């Protein structure tokens, strides 16, 4: 697990090295900034510190020391003056906190009030998962964390105003109840009473009726949390954390406080309900095992046959290797399954997507710029809730990618659409084609990132269907195991076939290389399998792990 995480960190390091697009800064500065980012992203991924007990006294000396910490670690994102406008801010969503206007999401104080020092300490220690805010729990010692807090507080007049002393507006937090099915049930009732579903959706997928139009204080798009994704909770997923979030509200965002209109009991029940929505995810695997069946393969994602097939959960990340890069991907995890029989092979891809986008009109889309905010952004500097939507409508799509030709050993084409002499084959499903009653699955080939995948000239032999239910797509794609077409990947039992996945969320402005993608996983079709395959599998997994580890170490060294 750790290994995998380290590797993710590695990938980000690698990517960040390439992510030098901030024009006004000199090369040296850019590298510095990226160094900051890199170290922190790793920090955020692998570190989780403890909350301190002894608090440093708040005095001039501590503030001066805090300024040093700030200029070492925080300004690239939060800005020199703390206005949330550091050079890295442009490429982040959500944007770094503006300490001057001092609206904080994570507080134990009532709505509109400042956080207490301990709130800030917790945030800086644990970071804010799901955002770029790193965890400093191991990078900074406790004294340094207090110091930087005292410094941050000098950046805003609000902290100096004695009448706003946050310690006077602390909420009282009792102790969490023992969670039973009954408590969760009552929590569901509170969820309905408070109409949390208006934003978070009936099942907490972040897809409520009002979800698509929300913005933060400055008019930038802000989607409600998908409550099933525990790894995106900014303030932690303990019952107390969750209780605190909707008791105090998250200032600067549409997330309201419910302190007045839900009783304390109702709020604890609600916290238990929200927590019960969180799905665990296991990203340790990279082997997709196809299951052989006798029956005809279903195109229907709801066929009971799918319940038999093993599922692999694949982490997805924004495409940030080539321009235009994509830092705010929508799909961050995908569950995949595979069935086959003597003749055909079928894949089922299941993933959360808040909104069903089945229309497609690229309109005035091109050229796509490299900034992170092409989507919903208000024109009016004073926050204009009437968005100026860009003049295009994009569909949801998903693709499965294979090397076009059989691979030898660990050699694989690049996972971003291959290379010139290492082409890839893609099976791509487009929601708009399905909506219009056409075959939604396209067979495509690509020879590198420079040219988008090209549709094959012969009509697509693959079929498929997507079903959208409450913030989730389930897409089935089916094809013959073996075909006549030279540029198709051919499937056979007993071999490892590299496979990777790509997804585009239309309402998140995703198209072309603005997408989420996975790295290579392996597909294995278990026929009557020779024992040797299992041995190979083991060797393979170990070798891959070793490689990942080596890569981590090497890139760590090369950084230092």
């Amino acid at each position, binding site marked *: 697990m750790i290994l995998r995480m380290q590797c993710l960190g590695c990938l980000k390091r690698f990517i960040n090295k390439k992510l030098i697009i901030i024009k006004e800064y000199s090369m040296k500065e850019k590298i510095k900034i990226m160094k900051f980012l890199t170290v922190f992203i790793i920090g955020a991924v692998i570190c989780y510190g403890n909350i301190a007990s002894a608090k440093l006294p708040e005095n001039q000396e501590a503030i001066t020391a805090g300024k040093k910490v700030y200029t070492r670690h925080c300004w690239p994102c939060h800005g020199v003056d703390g206005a949330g406008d550091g050079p890295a801010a442009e490429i982040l969503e959500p944007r770094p906190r503006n300490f001057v*206007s001092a*609206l904080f999401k994570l507080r134990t104080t009532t*709505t*509109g*009030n400042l956080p207490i020092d301990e709130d800030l300490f917790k945030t800086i220690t644990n970071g804010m998962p799901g955002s770029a805010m790193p965890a400093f729990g191991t990078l900074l010692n406790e004294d340094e964390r207090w110091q930087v807090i005292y410094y941050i507080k000098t950046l805003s007049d609000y902290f100096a105003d004695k009448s*706003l002393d946050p310690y006077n507006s602390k909420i009282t937090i009792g102790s969490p109840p023992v969670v039973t099915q009954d408590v969760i049930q009552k929590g569901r009732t509170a969820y309905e*009473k*408070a*109409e949390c579903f*208006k*934003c978070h959706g009936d099942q907490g997928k972040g897809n409520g*009726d*009002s979800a698509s*139009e*929300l913005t933060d*204080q400055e008019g930038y798009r802000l989607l409600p949390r998908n409550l099933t994704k525990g790894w995106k909770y900014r303030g932690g997923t303990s019952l107390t954390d969750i209780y605190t979030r909707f008791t105090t*509200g998250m*200032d600067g*965002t*549409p*997330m*309201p*406080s*419910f*302190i*007045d*209109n839900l009783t304390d009991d109702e709020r604890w029940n609600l916290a238990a309900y929200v927590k019960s929505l969180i799905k665990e995810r296991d990203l340790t695997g990279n082997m997709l095992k196809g299951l052989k069946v006798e029956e005809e393969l279903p195109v229907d994602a709801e066929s009971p046959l799918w319940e038999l097939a093993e599922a692999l959960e694949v982490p997805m990340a924004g495409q940030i290797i080539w321009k235009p890069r994509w830092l705010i991907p929508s799909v961050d995890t995908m569950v995949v399954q595979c069935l086959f029989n003597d003749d055909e092979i079928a894949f089922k891809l299941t993933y959360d997507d808040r909104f069903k986008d089945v229309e497609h009109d690229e309109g005035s889309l091109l050229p796509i710029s490299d900034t992170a905010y092409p989507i919903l952004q208000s*024109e*009016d*500097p004073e*926050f204009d*809730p*009437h968005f100026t939507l860009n003049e295009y409508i994009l569909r949801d799509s998903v693709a499965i990618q294979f090397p076009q030709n059989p691979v030898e050993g660990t050699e694989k084409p690049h996972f971003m659409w291959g290379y010139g002499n290492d082409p890839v084959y893609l099976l791509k499903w487009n929601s708009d084609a399905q909506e219009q009653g056409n075959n939604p699955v396209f067979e495509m080939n690509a020879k590198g990132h420079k040219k988008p995948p090209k549709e094959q000239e012969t009509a697509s032999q693959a079929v498929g269907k997507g079903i959208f239910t409450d913030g989730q797509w389930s897409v089935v794609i089916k094809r013959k195991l073996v075909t006549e077409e030279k540029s198709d990947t051919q499937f056979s039992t007993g071999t490892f076939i590299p496979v990777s996945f790509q997804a585009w969320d239309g309402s998140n402005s995703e198209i072309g290389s603005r997408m989420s993608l996975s790295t290579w996983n392996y597909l294995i079709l278990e026929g009557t399998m020779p024992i040797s395959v299992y041995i190979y599998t083991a060797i393979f997994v170990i070798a891959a792990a070793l490689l990942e580890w080596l890569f981590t170490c090497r890139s760590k060294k090369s950084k230092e």
Partner: protein
Amino acid sequence: MKFLAGFVIFFLMIGLSSHLFAGNGTVVGTIKFEGENPGYPDANINKDPEVCGTGTRPTEKLILSADNGIKNVFVSIVGVAGEKLAVPAENPVFGQEKCNFNEHVMVVPTGSTVDFPNMVDKVMHNLHSYSMKNRPFNKGVPFGEKISMPFTKPETVKITCDVHKWMIAYLIVHDDPYYAITDADGNFKIENVPAGTYKLQLWQESLGRKKIDIEVKDGEESKVDFAMTPRKRRKKS
């Protein structure tokens, strides 16, 4: 009864004469719009149809009469050494019906606590304020509930509901009675202003702020007609 009437008249006279002696004047005028109408789109009513209704609603961002008079301009005279607004004994009420705030621009005296009931619409509204001097708030208010919030500093506070994005209103926290809100034709009238030279301040949500020099003369009516122009869009850096 007669006694009472006499009493009232007596006090009215005192009131009148005191104003006369203090040398008060009146400021009247019309605020018009000049320039290209930015053409704010109508609000799309697309949530909770049973409660909010459907279709579109004209935007309140800029309401113009046939001859370009602007509605809902907050006109105030800055720095009058005169009366102050008293904090009302009963809390001002800021309600909503059919997912529309009852008033688009409402003035409350500094120091007031305002009640925000949700007693009509059978849906939750989250009342979300935007302000700098008064601490902002964002509270979910289900049907049948009420919140009360204090406003301690003079300021224009924007109130929205994120669930129903078109719901926007402004609460103006103000110190003194020397203000008016323009009517549908852009007309306003501010009475009983102590004579002197002042700045007249105009504020309109989409056009911003504007200050004009005025002179108020004893017992006279000063006429101020003014044309507001579209705000220059600040470029996003």
